[in-house]
C-alpha cells in the first residue's frame, strides 16, 4: 500500500505541471501566493463565523446571515487553497509523504476540521436563537482550534525535514 503511495508521489512529481514549476525561475512564489490567498479567505471567513457563533465581538448580523453572506467565498477560498496546496505537494510529493507533520495535517487534522466546518455551516441556521446552544459554541471553538492546529502542523513540516529534504 505504502509502495503504491510512493509510486504515486513519484508520478506526480514527474507531471508536466510539477516539472514546469520546478524549472521555472518565477513560478514558486506565485504558487505559494495561491495557497496563502485561498487559506486567508478560508480561515478568515471561518473565523468570522465561528467567533460570531461563540458570541464574542460585534453582533451586527446573526450567525445565519453571516454564514449566508460568506458561504460562496468561503468555498472559493477552500478551492484556491486546495489548488495551491496540490501544486506545492506535486513538486516535492516524495518528501512530504514521509513527513510526520504533513501526514498528521492532511490525514487527521484537515479531515476533522473540514467535517466540523460542514456541521457548523449546516447548523448555523438552526442555532440562530437569542441564546446560542452550548453545543454550538463548543463546535465553533473546536473548529477554530482545529484550524489553528492545521496551521501549526503546516509550520512544523520543515522541522521534520531530514538531510537532503530541503528543495
Amino acid at each position, binding site marked *: 500500500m505504502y509502495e503504491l503511495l510512493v509510486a504515486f508521489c513519484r508520478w506526480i512529481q514527474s507531471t508536466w505541471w510539477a516539472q514546469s514549476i520546478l524549472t521555472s525561475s518565477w513560478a514558486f512564489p506565485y504558487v505559494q501566493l495561491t495557497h496563502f490567498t485561498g487559506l486567508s479567505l478560508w*480561515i478568515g471567513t471561518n473565523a468570522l463565523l465561528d467567533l460570531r457563533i461563540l458570541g464574542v465581538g460585534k453582533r451586527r448580523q446573526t450567525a445565519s446571515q453571516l454564514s449566508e453572506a460568506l458561504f460562496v*467565498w468561503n468555498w472559493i477560498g477552500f478551492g484556491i487553497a486546495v489548488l495551491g496546496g496540490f501544486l506545492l505537494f506535486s513538486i516535492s510529493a516524495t518528501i512530504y509523504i514521509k513527513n510526520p507533520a504533513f501526514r498528521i495535517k492532511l490525514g487527521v487534522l484537515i479531515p476533522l476540521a473540514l467535517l466540523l466546518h460542514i456541521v457548523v455551516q449546516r447548523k448555523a441556521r438552526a442555532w440562530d436563537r437569542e441564546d446560542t446552544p452550548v453545543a454550538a459554541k463548543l463546535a465553533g471553538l473546536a473548529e477554530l482550534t482545529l484550524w489553528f492546529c492545521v496551521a501549526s502542523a*503546516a509550520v512544523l513540516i520543515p522541522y521534520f525535514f531530514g538531510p537532503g529534504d530541503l528543495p
Partner: protein
Amino acid sequence: MLQHFFEQLQANSWIVAMNTSAWMSAVLEVVHYFSFFVVVGMIAIVDLRIMGVAGRKQSAAQLAEQAFPWIWTGLCFAVFSGFVMFAGQATEYLHNSIFHRKLLVILLATVFGAWVQHSVSKWDRPPGVPARAKIVAFVSLALWLGAILMGVDVPAITGVG
C-alpha cells in the same frame, strides 16, 4: 544610528531567547501565519462585498462592522510576532530590499483598510456603492495580496523561516 539600534535589539536577551528556542520560533511562526490569514481573509471578504461580488443580500457596512475589530486584533498579533522574528535578525533585514518593500506594502494596505472602515457606512447607501469605493476596495485587496507575495519572498531570499 539605525544599525546600532538594530544591533542592540538583536542582542536583547528576550529577543535572543525567543528566536533561539525551536518551540518559540514555531509558535511565533504559527501566530504570524494564522493571524495574517485572519487579517487578509476578513479584509478580502469586506472588499469583495464592497466591489459587489460577495454576499450582496447583506449590508456591506454591517459586514465591515462585524469584521474590522477582528482585523485589527489579528493585525496586532501579526505585527507583534513579525516584529519578534524580525528583531532576531534585525541587522540582516536592514539591508533587505524585499523586506523593506513588504513593510511599505503592508503600511499602504493598512491605510487602505482604515479608509474602507472609515467610509463604508457612507458608501453603503442608496442608490448603491459608488465606483470610487469599488476602486478603493480593489486596491486594498490587491495590496494585501501583494503583501503576501512580498512575504513569501522574504524567507526564500534570506534563507530563514
